[in-house]
């Protein structure tokens, strides 16, 4: 009979549409503001630094969930996309700041949202909420994300057509190629050489990313605000994806690729889409990582770094977004908390992983979310509401 699309009826409570479309973004802003204005000022710099990394790692783990968790492909090059985003954003912020702000120093020119947790308002020099420097920073981060997404497309399209574990091999190679490329870039033009900086055309500066010395003195713009804004948006996007037709198409590939195809899922398309989207978020996270530590060094973004994120999602449960968030948080904070027992730290860490892998080989939550687990669901039901997500 009909090979028509799923019939879509006319009305359907379109009244709340804008609210329904945008509330996660409002929530993300609220979370970010809370972290920035309430949490940040109450902790010392070390804690804030750990929280920054927790937010960045949440973004990376959740985005990797889209590839390894949803489509069941095995990428071990996530850190490579992070590096791409970090170098692009770091380079742009550094060199563009030199152009736009006619100061001899590459300094921070952000507003309140980009001011570190130790910032105390100064009545003589009030900071705006957002400044021109922030706009440069946002643009640079988006550029970093987009270039990473483009790299994801170039890597993914030929690879993901093939069945099997080619992606693992190719992404492993990609990470190494990225490292070699950035280590082969020219020396960084330091801010002490203002004249040279001004005279060199931008496209040449783009290649002066410090090589093996690394790229340093990147202005520190990443704050709890930006990091948790990104993390929240990533989580919201992943949840919305998971509970929609395109996301289910991705998950069907992991469940049974042959059956997915037979049911009409264009498996190559959805693998590539998941991969590109994940690369985009990884690029953004890499950008914020660069802007929080103030330097990039390609050697820090090899496959060992990629394995950190794989461990997070394996622990959280492949395909569980809340699991990835939890695992990323714990695995960022725990090593720091155990720092005073430094010599035992790696042992404790490894033991924890082994114990969890023995007790729950499917990870903490498997493919499910916290609120979908039996006990939690019963609790929610008793509270009088079914837990339906996003």
């Amino acid at each position, binding site marked *: 009979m*009909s090979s028509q699309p799923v019939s*879509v009826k006319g009305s359907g409570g379109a009244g709340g*549409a804008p609210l*329904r479309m945008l509330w996660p973004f409002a929530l993300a802003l609220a979370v970010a503001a809370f972290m920035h204005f309430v949490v940040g000022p109450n902790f010392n710099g070390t804690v804030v630094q750990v929280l920054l990394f927790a937010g960045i790692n949440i973004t990376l783990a959740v985005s990797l969930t889209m590839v390894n968790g949803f489509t069941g492909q095995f990428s071990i090059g996530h850190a490579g996309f992070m590096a791409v985003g970090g170098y692009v954003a770091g380079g742009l912020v550094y060199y563009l700041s030199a152009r736009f702000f006619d100061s001899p120093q590459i300094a921070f020119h952000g507003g309140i949202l980009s001011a570190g947790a130790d910032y105390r308002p100064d009545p003589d020099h009030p900071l705006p909420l957002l400044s021109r420097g922030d706009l440069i920073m946002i643009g640079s981060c988006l550029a970093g994300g987009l270039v990473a997404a483009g790299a994801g497309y170039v890597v993914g399209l030929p690879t993901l057509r093939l069945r099997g574990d080619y992606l693992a091999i190719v992404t492993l190679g990609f990470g190494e190629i990225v490292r070699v490329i950035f280590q082969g870039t020219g020396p960084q033009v330091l801010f002490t050489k203002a004249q040279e900086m001004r005279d060199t055309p931008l496209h040449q500066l783009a290649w002066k990313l410090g090589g093996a010395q690394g790229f340093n003195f990147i202005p520190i713009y990443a704050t709890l605000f930006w990091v948790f804004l990104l993390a929240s948006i990533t989580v919201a996007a992943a949840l919305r994806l998971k509970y*929609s*037709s395109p996301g289910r198409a991705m998950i069907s590939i992991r469940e049974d690729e042959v059956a997915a195809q*037979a*049911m*009409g899922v264009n498996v190559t398309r959805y693998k590539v889409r998941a991969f590109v989207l994940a690369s985009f978020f990884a690029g953004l996270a890499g950008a914020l990582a660069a802007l929080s530590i103030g330097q990039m060094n390609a050697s820090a973004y090899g496959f060992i770094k990629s394995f950190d994120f794989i461990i997070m999602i394996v622990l959280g449960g492949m395909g569980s977004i809340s699991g990835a968030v939890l695992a990323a948080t714990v695995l960022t904070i725990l090593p720091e908390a155990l720092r005073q027992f430094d010599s035992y730290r790696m042992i404790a860490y490894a033991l924890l992983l082994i114990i969890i892998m023995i007790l729950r080989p499917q990870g903490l939550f*498997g493919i499910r979310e916290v609120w979908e687990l039996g006990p939690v669901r019963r609790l929610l039901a008793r509270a009088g509401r079914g837990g339906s997500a996003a």
Partner: protein
Amino acid sequence: MSLLSITDLSISFGGLKAVSGFNLELAQGRLQGLIGPNGAGKTTCFNLLTGVYAPTSGTIRLAGRTLNGLRPHQIAAAGLARTFQNIRLFPELTVLDNVRIGCHLRTRSTMAGALLRSPFHVREERAMVERCRGLLEVLNLADRADEQARNLPYGDQRRLEIARALATQPKVLLLDEPAAGMNTQEKKELRGLIRQILRDFGLTILLIEHDMGLVMDICEFITVLDHGVTISAGTPAHVQNDPKVVEAYLGAPAGAEEVA
């Protein structure tokens, strides 16, 4: 004019001619059977039709359109859906999600629409749930919608495969041993169910089945394969009395015994 038209379809795996010179004409609204002993090449035929394997030779036409060379998802979109002999559900997902994935290829909203929860996307998802619940109702799975597919009993899994295939809105449905592993009562219900979906969904069905009682009862026309070759084709009465069929099944000289 037939809806599904298969001409001279052949495939070899190495030296093995799994299917050779297979022909079949299936008219709109009909229910035909495809039978044969183990290893006869029945499932391989389905795999050829759905693009899992590329045929060595032959053409497949659905409603006048040649399907050769299309990828499996394109064939599904063209209107050919199947179930699997060795059940291939999405095991970790719920029954409802399994069926919803069948609906996916008929959806129109984009990834951006899904990420932004655009009004169109939301309406489409709602319509999808409604349609899936309807399908589960038809296949007696309505009260299992939220269970994980892998926790279902065997018979339910087989019916879920049918529900999922129907969700793709096929023109032709290929059923690969839908009664395998079912008890007598379930088989009886399945018989009624196949007749019902044939009628209610305006379907056309090609059925592989080892249960001769079922096949002989519901099929109007039966093709018999043995070692990849079509050895007989005709009404149930005709193939049942064909000495070649008897021989193929019993491995005995023609006319030795009746087909059970």
